[in-house]
């Protein structure tokens, strides 16, 4: 009896002592539905990076990372349900991988004090951290993407787009419409004509749009697509013999899934990116040893090194680095969502840090601050090599035209602040 009581007392003491909870990173993934082919590699990359940290380093600062997956099917209502069902789990950071879900979660995460990272998607003006305290969209946003595409085209045309025609083929949704204002402003500045060609969801039938491209003969086509819309657009462009090297997709129109169905015809197609391509980095060796070969990969392991797997991995890396920063700032390993937010706001990514992580030259350097939750907006161009079935980065990182973008961001974020009675400010 005495022994039992002692054991119970010891057990109670141990339970009452300080115990490290896991660092929880929910993954609002979509492994089913029309966009599953894109959602799967991203979710795999995101989960595998945290698994690597757990297996190789014992977690982040000695605390294990825990990824809770919730299936959204890229459906906004389900995304909100996922948020509601996981926010009580000690969730530190949300990455919904959907502009629609991001828009719905902005007021919710702000009220609940949980940061959200919409990397390369979501509400562009969230870059203004003095209004959107809990929303981050570093290292680049849609308006950066539009500006980088135009700057690249300027560089291809002797710094002048005067008299050129540029068509925007876009998903007829909040996501697809994001770059229109920026491209219109840039058209005023650079003198090109902008032709708008919306495509309805899901984008399986685009004959009208591409017949118009054939009739109007734009010099360049920029695409803001997602899912099946991308592959159909590329196939239609091949069909009408539009020159592939004059066709540039946003980073969400630049995965292997988009180009492979068009076969050899897609050779030369270009896309934007905010991180590098392939798997020729030291970190991928560790990934093989600790995750893939150990049978701990989130998926089948066949997506490693693809554009969207790398993006998921990059998103996880940025989340882990922000968590490390938060641990350093707060002096505690067991961080809260508020401390995670502070960590994100103080995040600085340098080439030295990337090299140390085993990802040299994988992404741009940038620094986050209260006024700037979006980083420097650097983007580069990748081009598809159909024979080798691989993307090649063909430019250095290009900075966006902040003279045009900053006033737009200020205007949109101030309007949001007014609508929602937010007093902008940085502590």
């Amino acid at each position: 009896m005495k022994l039992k009581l002692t054991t119970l007392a010891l057990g109670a003491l141990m339970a009452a002592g300080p115990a490290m909870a896991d660092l929880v990173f929910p993954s609002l993934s979509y492994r089913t539905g029309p966009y599953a082919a894109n959602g799967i590699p991203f979710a795999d990359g995101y989960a595998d990076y945290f698994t690597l940290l757990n297996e190789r380093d014992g977690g982040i600062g000695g605390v294990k990372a825990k990824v809770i997956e919730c299936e959204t099917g890229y459906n906004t209502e389900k995304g909100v349900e996922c948020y509601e069902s996981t926010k009580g789990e000690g969730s530190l950071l949300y990455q919904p991988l959907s502009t629609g879900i991001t828009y719905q979660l902005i007021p919710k995460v702000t009220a609940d004090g949980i940061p959200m990272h919409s990397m390369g998607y979501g509400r562009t003006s969230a870059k203004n951290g003095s209004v959107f305290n809990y929303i981050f969209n570093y290292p680049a946003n849609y308006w950066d993407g539009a500006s980088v595409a135009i700057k690249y085209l300027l560089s291809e045309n002797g710094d002048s787009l005067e008299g050129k025609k540029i068509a925007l083929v876009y998903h007829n949704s909040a996501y697809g419409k994001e770059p229109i204002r920026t491209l219109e402003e840039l058209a005023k500045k650079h003198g090109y004509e902008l032709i708008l060609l919306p495509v309805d969801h899901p984008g399986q039938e685009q004959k009208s749009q591409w017949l118009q491209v054939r009739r109007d003969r734009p010099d360049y086509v920029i695409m803001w697509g997602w899912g099946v819309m991308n592959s159909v657009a590329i196939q239609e462009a091949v069909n009408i013999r539009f020159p592939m090297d004059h066709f540039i997709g946003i980073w969400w129109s630049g995965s292997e899934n988009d180009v492979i169905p068009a076969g050899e015809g897609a050779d030369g197609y270009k896309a934007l990116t905010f991180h590098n391509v392939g798997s020729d980095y030291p970190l991928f060796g560790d990934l093989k040893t600790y995750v893939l070969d150990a049978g701990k990969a989130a998926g089948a392991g066949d997506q490693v090194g693809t554009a969207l797997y790398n993006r998921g991995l990059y998103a996880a890396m940025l989340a882990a680095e922000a968590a490390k920063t938060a641990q350093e700032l707060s002096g505690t390993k067991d961080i809260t969502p508020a401390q995670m937010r502070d960590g994100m706001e103080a995040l600085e990514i340098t080439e030295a840090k990337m090299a140390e992580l085993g990802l040299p030259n994988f992404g741009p350097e940038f620094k986050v601050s209260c006024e700037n939750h979006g980083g420097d907006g650097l983007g580069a161009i990748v081009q598809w090599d159909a024979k080798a079935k691989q993307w090649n980065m063909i430019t250095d990182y290009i900075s966006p035209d902040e003279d045009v973008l900053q006033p737009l961001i200020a205007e949109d974020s101030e309007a949001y602040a007014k609508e929602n009675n937010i007093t902008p400010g940085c502590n």
Partner: protein
Amino acid sequence: MPDQLLFAMEVTLNGLMAGVLYALVALGFVLIFKASGIFNYAQGVMALFAAATLVGIMEGQVPFSHLINAIFGGEVTHFGWHVPALAAIVLTVLVMVLLAWLVQKLVMQHLVNQEPIILFMATIGLAYFLEGVSDLMWGSEIKTLNVGLPQGLNETIDQITYDAFGYGFFIDNLDIVATVIAGLLVVALMLFSQYTKQGRALRAVADDHQAALSVGISLNFIWVLVWSLAGFVALVAGIMWGAKSGVQFSLSLIALKALPVLMLGGFTSIPGAIVGGLIIGVGEKLFEFLLGPALGGATENWFAYVLALLFLVFRPQGLFGEKIIERV
């Protein structure tokens, strides 16, 4: 000839071709509805399943490989052989026949004489089940479907129209192939239903279940037959659409394109599906060409339904549908 007129002619031709592709999907719905009164919600998913099965067989993919690997370990994904397209199509047809038999045996047989809405609900369940099975069996990654169909600009039409009008029309070779195949399919289906014993039995069941049963026609056999035919049509539609976009989940959404065609052409008429498809195809493309720019574009999806609704108001049974007269 004014440029706008030439462009309108080109759009009309492309609309006709797109309409044929819509009609291919609608045909599957018509076949099942005509014979059994079931609106088969799973028709779009059947196209996805058929196309994914075809690619899987062609590439020697091991079905359920993810599941097998997860349970037993290992990294089995492919058998290591490639099956020629024609043989793979035949094998896929057999899989679709097996699917038809399973649907009949496990679902429909137990729901004979139930209300149409119950049968419709069953097909909704079937659609989601089949979607999951398709993912589990062949994976959800986008697959390239290459059965050797030509794609891209038809040079001959381009040249002829250029010589005649000074502007070469764009017609996709794949659309021409789809038109020929759809034509052959309709003729084959009509010959089958007119001149074969099974076809006549199918028509008898379509006219009156009870009377057909009383003369010894097996309802089970006819339903397996009709689901098999719908599976075959789904395979043809899956090949045509899959060649355009790759085989991926979105193939199942092509059913949305068939609904206005059915509303317009009628749920019980094979020629109705074809004519309905052509009217929807031309109507939506011309509307987009003429008024799309003024309305902000992307009008095709909703205009197809508006067009179908307009027909519905004046002819509720559709252009070729059977007029239902109920006496009280």
